[in-house]
């Protein structure tokens, strides 16, 4: 075992979590490497310091009495004072149109059913962290590592041709917008979809910063917005994804007829929403999306 390998297992060694054989290898290495031995000491010292700092001691006696009393009538025993969090949970959002008002009423009803899953901000339906949002971020990160190698050699480079070819092969209305005016160049396209879900994936890169933007098209994916249903053809879902590298990605997704599209990249939500609006206006003529165009831009941070 060398130092690099030991660094990987130092914590597990200090915690007694290694298998016997690995433990022996680690001990052999430590006998020869004082620096790695200090790493183990450091981990132990950190643990001690954390325990000293955050250990508040035993629960107060009154809490034990409260819990025991609650066991006698568990269905009724909720804390007497609702937390400030519960009181502030519901937020109203306003739409500028009558459609928006109907939507607000519908969404208010669904809020009662899914208070833990949805928080509303003006003009945008926000979905708290969920597995589909996570999957979009994971796929973006995995493909971003490939960079230009992400491009499937069998596909053309012309965006309209990509859209046509992928659309025919995948039976989807593949989104392949020209984002040159927004400062993005196509890096590559492939049929990888999202984490095993068939679909198209176009990878763009920012000409100014080199940051990568993913545009996915998959078959309609209701779970992306926690399964809430509304009588709208388009609704935005969004979330944030934090990669283990420390990178943060924003995800903005929407349904359109039989497809679901998702944008993902290390950009602000406002930027992604702006891109979505621009794409829909330029690709299909001046066709404002109900609740998507000006109300969003007016309210986006």
């Amino acid at each position: 075992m060398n130092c690099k390998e030991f660094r990987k297992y130092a914590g597990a060694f200090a915690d007694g979590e290694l298998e016997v054989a690995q433990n022996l290898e680690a001990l052999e290495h430590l006998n020869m490497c004082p620096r790695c031995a200090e790493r183990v000491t450091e981990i132990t010292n950190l643990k001690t310091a954390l325990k000293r700092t955050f250990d508040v001691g035993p629960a107060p006696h009154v809490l034990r009495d409260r819990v025991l009393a609650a066991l006698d009538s568990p269905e009724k025993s909720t804390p007497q004072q609702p937390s400030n969090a519960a009181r502030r949970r519901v937020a109203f959002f306003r739409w500028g149109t009558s459609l928006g008002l109907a939507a607000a009423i519908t969404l208010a009803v669904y809020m009662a059913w899914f208070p833990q899953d949805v928080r509303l901000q003006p003009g945008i339906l926000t979905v708290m962290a969920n597995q589909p949002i996570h999957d979009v971020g994971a796929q973006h990160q995995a493909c971003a590592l490939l960079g230009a190698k992400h491009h499937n050699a069998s596909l053309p480079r012309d965006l309209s041709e990509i859209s046509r070819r992928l659309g025919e092969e995948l039976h989807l209305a593949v989104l392949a917008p020209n984002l040159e005016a927004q400062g993005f160049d196509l890096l590559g396209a492939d049929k990888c979809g999202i984490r095993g879900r068939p679909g198209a994936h176009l990878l763009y890169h920012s000409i100014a910063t080199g940051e990568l933007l993913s545009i996915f098209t998959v078959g309609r994916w209701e779970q992306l917005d926690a399964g809430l249903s509304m009588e709208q053809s388009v609704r935005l879902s969004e979330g944030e994804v934090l990669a283990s590298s420390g990178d943060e990605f924003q995800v903005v997704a929407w349904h359109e007829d039989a497809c679901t599209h998702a944008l993902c990249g290390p950009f602000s939500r406002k930027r992604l929403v702006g891109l979505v609006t621009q794409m829909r206006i330029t690709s299909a003529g001046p066709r404002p999306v109900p609740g998507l165009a000006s109300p969003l831009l007016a309210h986006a941070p």
Partner: protein
Amino acid sequence: MSTTAGDNSAGSAKRARFEQHALPHLDIVYRMACTLTDDEVEAEDLSQETFTRAFNGFDRFELREYGARPWLLRILYNVFYSQRVRHRREPTLLDDVDFDHFADELDGGAWDTDTPNSINWDNVDEELKGAMANLQPAHRSVILLWSIEGLSYKEIAHVCDCAIGTVMSRLYRARQLLKRELLGYARDRRISTERFDR
């Protein structure tokens, strides 16, 4: 035996089992509730709610080799994160990092270039609180479960509903982030032993 008497008997048995297996962990649940809420009153409410839900779901609980502690803590975390108002949306952690792969990040990274044991651990309590507050919740959870309660990786994985490899990589990341913050404080306040090794 009448139905009512039978129900009472079953209810008593359930309560007795719950008191035997779950109630001994009240201190642990309260301690973790305090670290999550940073407020004793909220922590008491959170703890009570945790045990209430645990009792309601106790019929479905299966006692495993590590007992009821991880199960209770998982309920605690679920209750906390479902009740909590987030002024800023919490991002999802990508849990894809296979423990075997995250070693690649060690090469050439800024994570591990500091000298080990360069912090004076006796005088960092306030700085540690500040550094912990800056951690992402997922990192903060694993580091607290690891340090305060001494849970095994398997138990932490059960509480956090993730793979053991994910626990290991999050622990590694959390420790490095804390160390980086503490070294920053130390450089500002000259409490690092490195400053005196000239």
